[in-house]
């Protein structure tokens, strides 16, 4: 479980949800029934209590504010690393994706990850990318979900497509790993472990990331967090 200070800091990084907006969130979430086990908490500076941040509350927050909490918004942060600029580091535990920049900085994006995480950790690369990619549901999803069955031959790219505005296809050597970093039509899911897999980002963010990376970019998926290392 990850916790985010709402008083302007995410632990030590000076980020988080603003005081007023967090109060609004706290008001919304009182008494709410959890649809999922909470994976994320944020700190309410007014009540000085940790507030669960789950799917329902995230959706309510997004409806009220038209954006995700500040911690998950795109921002430049200090990031001391030996990785070269252009490298992507995915921290599924904290729901952050870092794009390393020169000068010991990184662009940090909020991400949503699968309930089962990636199922692995390690080093891959961006093998190819696509704009408004076609989504083809896996066979088992077609079998169990009539809505998915409609798109058994592929759902054209567009605002309702689960892959969102862009997709980065992750390769190991020349092999497609079947894992992707992609956009989403459900921006409130950023910061949560609710998707069926892969790494999802807000469409604006995946468009931004897509514009900055090069084919072949190194991608490091960290071991920590939410089942990311299961199967390692």
């Amino acid at each position: 479980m990850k916790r985010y200070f709402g008083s302007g800091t995410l632990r030590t990084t000076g980020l988080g949800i603003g005081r007023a907006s967090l109060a609004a969130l706290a008001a919304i979430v009182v008494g709410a029934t959890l649809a999922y086990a909470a994976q994320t908490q944020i700190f309410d500076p007014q009540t000085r209590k940790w507030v669960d941040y789950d799917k329902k509350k995230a959706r309510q927050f997004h409806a009220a504010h038209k954006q995700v909490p500040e911690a998950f918004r795109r921002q430049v942060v200090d990031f001391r690393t030996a990785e070269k600029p252009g490298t992507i580091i995915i921290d599924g535990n904290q729901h952050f994706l870092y794009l390393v920049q020169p000068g010991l900085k990184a662009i940090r994006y909020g991400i949503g990850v699968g309930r089962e995480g990636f199922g692995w950790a390690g080093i891959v690369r961006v093998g190819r990318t696509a704009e408004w990619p076609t989504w083809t549901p896996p066979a088992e999803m077609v079998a169990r979900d009539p809505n998915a069955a409609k798109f058994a031959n592929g759902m054209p790219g567009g605002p309702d497509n689960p892959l969102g505005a862009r997709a980065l296809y992750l390769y190991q050597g020349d092999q497609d790993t079947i894992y992707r970093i992609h956009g989403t039509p459900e921006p409130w899911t950023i910061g949560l472990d609710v998707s069926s897999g892969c790494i999802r980002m807000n469409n604006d963010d995946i468009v931004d990331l897509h514009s900055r990376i090069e084919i072949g970019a190194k991608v490091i998926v960290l071991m920590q967090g939410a089942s990311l290392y299961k199967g390692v």
Partner: protein
Amino acid sequence: MILAHASLLPKLGLSVFFLSAIATAGAAADLKIGMPNWPSGQASANIIKYGIEKQFGLSVDVEEMGTLIIFAGLDSGKVDVHPEVWQPNFDSLIKKYVDDRKTVQLSPKEVSAEQGLCATKETADKYGVKDVSDLLDPVKTKVFDTDGDGKGEMWIGADTWSSTAIERIRAKSYGYDQTMTLLSMPEDVAMAAVDAAAATGEPIVFYCYSPHHVFRLHDIVHLTEPAHDDAKWKIVLPSDDTEWLSKSEAPVAWPASHFEIGFSSSMAERLPKVASFLSNIDFTPEEIIEMSYILQVERQDPASFAKAWIAAHGDRLSAWSK
């Protein structure tokens, strides 16, 4: 760093960066340095290359290769220098090539090194994890739990390193294999996790070795441990016995580690002044960390860096040449 099968290790993303230091293929050089794939070895390989070229007017190739291949090359005469021969990590190779076959010689100048467990200073100060015994306290190790199973997670090395097996033995011997999940992964993944933890103030504990640029990059502290005791250090490696873990016991700190430059005996006969030069090189651990940091983090061109270092340390080169 323990690299039992260094030639099998995946590249750590360093190869392309250092290619600029490699002499043009096809033009036979007077000497060849086998360059390992870890940062400090790459830094010192380049210093040695440009130092020899400046002092003796010889051409020197630097080629990245695994330690097993380097030693085979030193034995056959295809390679002349290994910039960092770690002990006790390469003891078996040293016995074979230095003691028995006498085809490889080691410089008497040792650089002291450390291996053990590390944490960010914030982890030690804020979460009270300062000694290896703290890893036996489930209340303390819970802060390293990122999947909710009640056990923390920690990196203990790369799959192919023999140190990783030894870290597993140490975890079993101390007992923190019951409170921590032990993870093995390439070093880049572990170091990126340290970077992310440091950037967000999250606690982290991990296997570490020094000299290494991570000590310059972040505020890192060693966990204290009971002093090494040879009588308690009973290591059986997986390559020697399938029941290695149950037959091993090591509830103490690693023995003191060190490394030195290795070179072929044939080269020492052919170029005794170069052998003398290599035997006089006296890098300090602090210099090794500094070199690694400049090349790995600041990403200076290794050739330019090595030339500048040599230009600024003329007195050292002169001393090494005597």
